């Protein structure tokens, strides 16, 4: 948690946001059936689906005001001004922000892009094969290069997903998008290996990278086996690798 007086500055922002949410909740609530009969239930005010939303909206507005007043009384305005001033001086692509991007970009692209269009196993390797080495190596320069490259790769997949081109490509060759993902994984691997060669702590990094790779390739294997074949959960997209597993599974069984 942040320091107390700084916190009051942020409280001003959050309480205003909560206030707006409260108002929105109320506006929506008053458009719900309040008096007319709906679905065979004779509506009075106390039956309306709007009853609790109104209570929630009003309470949220009241509490938001209390938090706002408390913040203003305790030096929130001053703190807010200071944080704005500090914000103006900071760089967008600072090491800290690159770190944040390195957490979020793979997570967001896994959930919103890859799970649906890339084979489950490959999607997970694409996630872990980036996230684990990027943080385990703890080198700001390697991380920065990897993030730029990964961002570019994800952009391609995003375009495939949005334009529905992935569906068209998969029709051409059943595992087209999976192959693209595999090539992306390999390119990322090459990038890491080259960067590690260039770096000063070559030996340490090489050893760490090996561990990271074992982790990124083997754990998804276990996850697929446990979830797909033991818990029998159909995976979001079963492509090249999962189908290969299934074939082996049905042969062995």
């Amino acid at each position, binding site marked *: 948690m942040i320091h107390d007086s700084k916190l009051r500055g*942020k409280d001003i922002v959050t309480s205003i946001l909560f206030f707006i949410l409260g108002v929105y*909740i109320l506006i929506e609530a008053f458009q719900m059936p309040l008096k007319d009969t709906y679905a065979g239930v004779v509506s009075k005010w106390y039956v309306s689906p709007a*009853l609790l939303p109104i209570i929630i909206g009003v309470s949220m507005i009241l509490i938001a005001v209390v938090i706002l007043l408390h913040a203003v009384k305790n030096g929130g305005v001053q703190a807010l001004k200071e944080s704005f001033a500090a914000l103006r001086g900071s760089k967008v692509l600072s090491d800290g922000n690159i770190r944040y991007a390195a957490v979020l970009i793979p997570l967001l692209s896994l959930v919103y892009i890859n799970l649906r269009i890339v084979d489950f196993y490959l999607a997970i390797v694409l996630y872990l094969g980036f996230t684990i080495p990027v*943080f385990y190596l703890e080198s700001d320069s390697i991380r920065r290069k990897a993030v730029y490259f990964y961002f570019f790769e994800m952009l391609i997949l995003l375009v495939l997903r949005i334009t529905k081109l992935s569906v068209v490509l998969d029709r051409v060759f059943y595992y087209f998008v999976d192959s693209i993902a595999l090539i992306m994984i390999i390119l990322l691997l090459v990038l890491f290996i080259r960067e590690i060669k260039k770096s000063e702590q070559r030996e340490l990094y090489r050893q760490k990278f090996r561990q990271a790779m074992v982790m990124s390739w083997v754990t998804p294997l276990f996850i697929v086996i446990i979830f797909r074949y033991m818990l029998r959960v159909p995976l979001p997209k079963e492509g090249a690798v999962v189908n290969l597993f299934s074939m082996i599974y049905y042969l062995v069984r």
Partner: protein
Amino acid sequence: MHIATQFSIFFSSIGSILINPYQLLLLFGSVLLGVVFGALPGLTATLGVALLTTLTYSLPMQSAMIALMGIYVGAVYGGSYGSIMINIPGTAAAAATAMEGYPMALQGKAGKALGLTTTSSAIGTTIGMMFLVVFTPLIMRLALQFTSFEFFLLAFFGIMISGSISCPDTVQKGWIMGFLGLFLAMVGRDQLQVYPRYTFGIMSLEGGIEVVPVLIGAFGIPQIIQVLKDRQIVPEPMKVNKLLPSWGDIIKYFPNTVRSALIGVGIGAVPGIGEDIAAWVAYGTAKKTSKHPELFGTGTEEGIIASETANNSCIGGAMIPLLSMGIPGSPPAAMLLGALLLHGVAPGPMLEIERPGFTLQISAILLLASFAMWIVGMLLAKQVIKLLHVPPALFMPVVAVLCLIGSYALGLKVFNLYLLIPVGIVTYYLTNMGYPIPPLVIGVILGGMADANLRRGLMVSQGSLLPFITRPVSLILVLVILFTFLTNTEIYRRVVMKVRASLKRQK
């Protein structure tokens, strides 16, 4: 039935399981599976029981019940692993445990915390079992006092108490998070008139926002961001010699344990609410009655004991209405009811006439399951602590993947993951600004119940608010809520200060 025959049934069923190596293996296997299920974020006790119902369909009834009770007990206990080790509760029932367990792990006392949860879970399960055997009729009469009004107040109380006890900053922040959770629970078709609220025309939202994506999003994602981005590191645990709590500790915390178990049994017996609420109410009560409430949130042993005893004793409580009325007391118990029906057992008032001694058999299995859980837990805890030696950068991304696939596996909906991520990112910022997460999650869990029961109660009373204060249980709840509210306001503090000052002056 005569007491002597009851004893003989109880102990003979214990004996018959103990001498049967196959059933013993089944018991330990399913408990272990349950612990793994509980510990993995997203996979819940309900899902575990559902899964084993299908898998044990071809087994004889007693073996199937051993497996099902085993996984139930194991999963409720297993949730605490995630809470203590990585601050991501494996199940909603273990959310309260994270309040104290993770700070303890940060102090290098992860081993001690796991030892405490294991022992208090076992004690809790056993106490719940005893209530199931002895007090079933009495508890049923109490549980039937709960009509729509009481359900609404109970839901409201749950949100309120989690808001006021888990707050690192001013208490209003806890409450506003509770209301935010309530709002999220309003999304979707309402339960009574099926009117769509706040759905933005998105079809997937019409069914409402499920608990698991909010739970995992709100606890899991901020933790993953914090560890990776802000390099928050759990220190290597101190060398653990003994996981077992000492007899001195057990005696010292005895009143707390019993009180929490009573809360667990009581809440378990009320239909429809389960382990999660039991843990919070017990935790809150432990804080209110503690000599050092200010230490709560910094890794107190009392807090862990309270929540873990309560969530496990809830199992016995939930079995009470299940076996005596055919009404499940908690969500996993609902699945258990299904499993019993599949095996041709119809739980209800006629159960003891049609199958004499069935309740005692279940109690015997429950007792054995709690022992098995304790043994598995003690063996497992030492190994699990070793995980803390693995660098976080290696395993945190794997935790992220497990969070996602776990939440997906429950209901097979990728849409839940679409929700999970924004919930996680928003709560990451909110946590950093001193807003507590637990009330948000409790709000989502209880919101639907609060809404439907408030309106239904008013429908029954034709809009009159009088039943709130004329019904005895309802009146008690109203008073408790008012008390919680007042003790948390400025005015109350000022009045107390003034009274104290004037008392001093008079002296």
